[in-house]
């Protein structure tokens, strides 16, 4: 896999909690090529955010711990880098928009202070105070916030949820990253604003031809935003394919369930179409983690863990039904 911008291999993560050890990520595999817009879907708690925090090496530890895997950015393992090297990947290399803008902004500093720190430290070029400021104003303007000068002096509580997410988008774009991670950027917002934010994000990304990982619950959104889709279930990628291929020919039983569950009009939750729940990470099933919910499961699925196998042109699936012994 040469030429990949980001290549995640066999990523395993555990969380130590009071009740024991949550074995959450179970060997995540994922490749993003330059200029690609990748969609990552999966129900709540399947490990999407955790994976992305590992990519930036910002997973809080404790309680989180990476126990195996590689995260290659431009072929170099982020997990083995020195502090100094990681810092130069963050911001200018990879930037992330968080799920909940209210939690992602520091409540006791002004927007200006935070945004200007990001520009000062995250950008490729070293800028003087005046350039940092003018870039901050420009990028707030770009995300269509009215009166950027005033917003710089505001604290997060003085802004609405939609405005806060625009600020976070501005932060993530201000460093001109090669790869942008957008982690469900609209789930915490009013339905009326969700669409505006998505369109804005799409336009900004298109203008810059940035590579994107777009995380969402909604297959409808994936259809709009992505070229390639990864489906995640209980800590691993279980299927990936080009968008058209995945929608016309879903193979994994979980993906098929998702397709059936797509609500006709709104594109809300995705778990309804599949009976059962995501497994308990304290004692996950030993074999295929989807096995307790799978209509096609057989003996092999209980004992062995299926890995991703290419079954067609760029179409990979982790299921024993598509794998000869």
């Amino acid at each position: 896999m040469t030429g990949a911008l980001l290549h995640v291999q066999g990523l395993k993560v555990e969380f130590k909690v009071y009740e024991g050890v949550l074995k959450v990520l179970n060997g995540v595999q994922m490749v993003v090529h330059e200029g690609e817009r990748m969609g990552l879907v999966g129900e709540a708690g399947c490990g999407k955010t955790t994976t992305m925090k590992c990519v930036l090496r910002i997973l809080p530890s404790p309680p989180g711990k990476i126990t195996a895997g590689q995260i290659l950015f431009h072929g170099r393992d982020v997990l083995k880098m020195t502090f100094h090297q990681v810092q130069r990947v963050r911001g200018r290399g990879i930037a992330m928009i968080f799920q909940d803008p209210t939690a992602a902004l520091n409540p006791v500093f002004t927007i200006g202070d935070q945004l200007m720190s990001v520009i000062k430290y995250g950008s490729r070029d070293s800028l003087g105070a005046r350039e940092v400021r003018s870039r901050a104003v420009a990028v707030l303007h770009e995300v269509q916030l009215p009166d950027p000068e005033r917003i710089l002096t505001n604290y997060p509580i003085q802004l609405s949820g939609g405005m806060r997410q625009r600020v976070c988008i501005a932060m993530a774009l201000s460093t001109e990253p090669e790869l942008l991670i957008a982690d469900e950027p609209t789930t915490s917002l009013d339905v009326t604003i969700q669409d505006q934010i998505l369109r804005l994000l799409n336009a900004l990304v298109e203008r810059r031809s940035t590579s994107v990982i777009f995380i969402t619950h909604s297959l409808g959104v994936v259809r709009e935003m992505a070229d390639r889709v990864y489906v995640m279930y209980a800590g691993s990628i279980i299927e990936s394919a080009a968008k058209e291929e995945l929608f016309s020919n879903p193979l994994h039983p979980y993906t098929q369930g998702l397709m059936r569950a797509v609500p006709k009009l709104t594109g809300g939750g995705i778990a309804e179409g599949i009976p059962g729940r995501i497994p308990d990470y304290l004692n996950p099933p030993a074999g295929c983690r989807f096995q307790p919910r799978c209509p096609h499961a057989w003996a092999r699925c209980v004992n062995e863990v299926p890995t991703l196998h290419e079954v067609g042109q760029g179409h990979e699936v982790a299921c024993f039904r598509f794998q000869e012994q």
Partner: protein
Amino acid sequence: MGILKLVGKRLVLSVFVLFGLSILIFLISRVLPGDPVRMALGPRAPEWAVQNMREQMHLDKPLYAQYYYWLSGALRGDLGQSLFTRRAVVDDIKEFLPATMELVLFAGVIMAVFGILLGAVAGRYSNTWVDNSVRIFSYVGVVTPSFVFAILFLLLFGYVLRWFPTAGRLSPGITRPQVITGMVTLDALVTGNFAALGDALWHMVLPAVSLALGGMAQEARITRSTISDNLRKDYIAAAKGFGIPERFVTLKYLLKPSLIPTVSILGLDFASLLGNAFLVELIFNWPGFSRYGINAMLRKDLNAVSAVVMVLGVVFVIVNILVDLVVAGLDPRIRLGAERGK
């Protein structure tokens, strides 16, 4: 603008608090058994002398009239006469209060600085041996009364090891600096008398540290848990994720929000310093206000008791307003809330 309004509100509230406190202490001191004048003059004083003094102090009038006399005096800065020292209570306060304030302020600084430092390190390196050591220290500090520390330190560092002096504010050979504030260290600093400054600080170490340990443990515990909670917040992950250097994130974006709960309880901890000073002053023979207060209560020295309580009340109110100001300075949510409310 928000800050001014906040202070204004607190000040108005404080006036009511102090007014209520004055009524309360006035009543309590007068309901206690025993005739204060008889106690002051002794059992062999003639009845007419006792009667004279009662009238002079308006003790023959009904309670509300007595309170009126007391309050109108207090508002003019006259807190009456002590029954024992036979001096104006205000003069007594001027003599004894600075020694206590000096001790308590020094203890307060030690408490805040080391409490926050220990807590921050423990929170940043949670679940390591550093954290565990701080945790043990916190448990010991929180459950041990300060007079126990005072006695232990006095014996160990004062008598056995002889590292520190065991009593008083200055060594015999040292001349006391000219009285300006009454706080020896400050006066010594202002007059450039560095021998006295060093000696005075040296005398303060044991009593101040015994006083500070309890609050320090409390501050350390709170700081530790806020820091380790906030370390998991998305805004910290986000700041790091955008390429801001980790040390800068810790010292700026983590520390400021994490100090808010700690500072909020500093006011309470400071009040407990004042309370604990009563016994610690006794143990280190510190010529302070607390000792004066104890004696006043034992002798039922009415005006002195009221004055001591009122002065402590005023100090407490001032400290709490300062704490509120610092918290408002740290937390825009409070400043802006005050602005938006009426």
